[in-house]
């Protein structure tokens, strides 16, 4: 059973908006990872990355191929999960790594939005 075009467009719009917001949340909180452990920032970032990754999976139902974004989103989520569970310690090294993942994810997301053939 396929969803109608109208519903599909509405859901894609929500996905674009929510993902943009979550990427912004990640970007805004990233500087706090250089500080002594900021739990609020870590938890906020984890939820943002987790939501991005979850939604990427759900987009399959709309037959939108976003697999290119999935790897970086998973990397981000896994790293932040480690921080949240205190398996990783926050600091410049982790912050730089996250910055790299985030930049790649942002670029891939922008590319998906800009490509004429993109379902987004």
């Amino acid at each position, binding site marked *: 059973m396929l969803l109608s075009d109208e519903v599909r467009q509405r859901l894609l719009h*929500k996905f674009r908006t929510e993902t943009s917001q979550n990427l912004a949340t990640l970007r805004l909180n990233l500087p706090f990872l250089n500080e002594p452990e900021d739990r609020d920032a870590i938890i906020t970032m984890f939820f943002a990355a987790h939501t991005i990754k979850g939604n990427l999976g759900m987009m399959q139902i709309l037959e939108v191929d976003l697999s290119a974004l999935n790897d970086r989103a998973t990397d981000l989520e896994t790293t932040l999960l480690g921080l949240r569970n205190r398996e990783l310690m926050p600091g410049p090294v982790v912050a730089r790594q996250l910055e790299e993942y985030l930049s790649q994810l942002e670029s891939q997301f922008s590319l998906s939005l800009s490509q004429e053939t993109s379902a987004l």
Partner: protein
Amino acid sequence: MNLEETRRKLLNKFKEETDTQLLSLQHRLVDLELDASNTDYLREVFRAAHTIKGSARMMNFGEISSIAHEMENIFAEMRDGRLRLQPETNDLLFEAVDTINTLVEAALRGDKTDLNVPGLNKRLAQILDTPGDSTATATSSGLASKETKPDEDANGTGAGQEAASLLPPIVLSKVGALSDNVIRVDVGKLDELMNIAGELVLGKMEAEATLNNLRALQDLLRQRQRLNGPVRNLIANSGRDPSEVTTWQEMREALIRLTQVDQQIEMLVKNTLRDHEENTSQLVNRVDELDNNVKSVRMLPIETIYQEFPLAVRSMAKEARRDLPDFRQQGGEIELDKKVLEGIRDPLVQIIKNSLVHGIELPQERLEANKPKAGRLIVSATQDGGFVTISVSDDGKGINPAQLRQKAIEKKIYSEARALAMSDEDIVNVIFESGFSTAPIIDDLAGRGVGMEIVKTNLERLGGQVSVNSQLGQGTTVTLRVPITMATSRALLVRVSGIIYAILAPAIESMFYLEMERVWSREGRDVTSYGNSLIPLVRLEDLIGRPGRADHPIFRHQELAHEAYNPAQLSGITAQNLTFENGHNPPAKRTGPSQGGYHNGNGQANREAVTGDGFVGLTLADPRATARIRELQEQNRDRQGRQTTLERLPAVVIGSGDRRICLLVDELVDETEIVVKSLSPLLTRAPHVNSATIMGDGQVVMILDVPSLIVTARQSAAPGLRKGREKTAAPKRILVVDDSITTRELERSILEAQGYIVELADDGTVALEMLSRDSRYDLVISDVEMPNMNGFELTTAIKASPALRGLPVIIVSSLNNDDHKRRGIEAGAEAYITKGDFEQANLLNTIEYLTS
């Protein structure tokens, strides 16, 4: 924003509000000198003092609060007829007003004063100590006789109370310095307004050009008239004039000149008309733009009032000896007209206070009831079309209907018979009655029975509604519903049984011609497909004109549509236009398409006329809507003119989310801008109508109350328009819990397309609250990682609850390792679906399996 900045903001707001109340006190105290028994004035001064007291307490201004408290006591006695105000007593009350004003000013500057507030309070309190009972009079001379000891003198100056009482009324020049009428406007918005104003100047010039053209046209017509004279004379005299050749030559020349003038007139009319059409179109756009911009200037986010609540809650909780509750505010970004926002502020403070004082139990009581020591209080706002719904929910002890019933009888608010006949749901509304309180004792925080009355009064003034939902032992939710703005609105005009009604545009989702093929019957109700879901289908005529349901004359006329009913008989209403367009008779009192026989007369031709599946696909926000309405009108007229069977009906979808309904009307008349007017008292109880508007031709059109229509439509079980294709199984209710809006909406779309009823929650806490309020869910679908309460915790809580234990839970999460799945199973979930492998068939099959 730091605490100091927050406090500064609150202080300014407090000043604005207190100014307003002090101004009201000043005016009414003067009025009361002339009419001491006027109950409206007495109620107003009482409320003003009450409001000042509450606000001052919130800001921790004890002196102001204490003076207002004493004033409130005096006004309460007067209001209840136990104390009669003497003119000279006003002096003391004016002194109190002035003292409050001085204290407020000092507080704003951060200064302290040397005013003798305890002395003033003592003198105010002594008014009530005046000997006597119900006939006591409040006079300052009575006070003077008691005020004899020098050490009780107010200022310690030796001046007695009598001297104070002889002071002339104090004029408070600074009170109400219009600060309440001030709004901060973003410079960008002002620039936009300036731009539009500049464009309107162009419009003025264009209008002047049109005027000049019309004057030129007038000159040409005069010329034509002058030329006409000789020609007529020549024709009249022909045959009698001997020099016919000359005569015909003159006539020929006159006709040539006449033709030239005619050409000039035609050209001028053509050009003027073209320019005017263009200019009018531009002017309409500019005026619309101006209207929108001016409205937006008045819009403020709810956050504006939210920011003061945390401090207020802290202060009130402390005073009520409650632990600081888990206080949350949601939807602060939603914008409301400043006037509406101001109007709901006090009601919200009152409701929050009620939750803290009456709702949330004392810490020990909560522990004994197996609740967390601190209560939970949630203020949440959501937008629903042109309305905003704000609810205040607590997890306190709830409202005891039996206790309310008893109190209502004791206080003679309802007769015993009436109170006993009222349902538990209805009796709860007694809390909005004046003087009703369940508090065992009157104290600083509660018990005067005025708070909820103010809430209701303020909401009614805003054209809003308030409702209460409570479950004993579990908590109470008070819900306010207010319009976003109170000025103008776009509206769709529809005709039903010959009468035109307006539906405000914000409540409309779409309009179209409904084909009978799209009508089904489910559980005895008509439904139609909308998007991917089924929504209730009702005839508007049935909702507003059903005998027994509509007991007001405004609706009875629909039963008398063929008789000479004259709506002008209704006081305060201009004659309603009861003529019918196109000359055809008003439609007979239809009993519904099923009885009328919706045959496939010329269905094919009409199906081609409407695009796609019959949906217009336009909303009123779309500028093409008006044109489309007209097109639909023409099609409708065409069909009716040819006396063909109506196999497709004009339909309007109102509401949003799972509250959508589809209304069948007789005709889509127009889409237009209207000015919303309050109903006259005569009509305020009319069902399904909440306001009115006056059209350009003077016709009064009732504006339908969409929330009320939706409630009635969803409750009604109208006989089916279409039999057959009925699914006998009751639709299943599913609660989807996910903090991602994308996922929530996606899952909802999939499930609603399959006929499930879907409700949404954005975290486990909210979900658990919904489940505790209503256990009629058939299944829960939950994410794992969510703020506040995750999916595992939610599942554990569900399975630990005797009432919810049997409810199947499906976890849909992007966490796909075995550890997480194990935790899901341990928590008691029936299924675990990974988002990365998400397939809707898998989800639907799982749901079908678990709910069958």
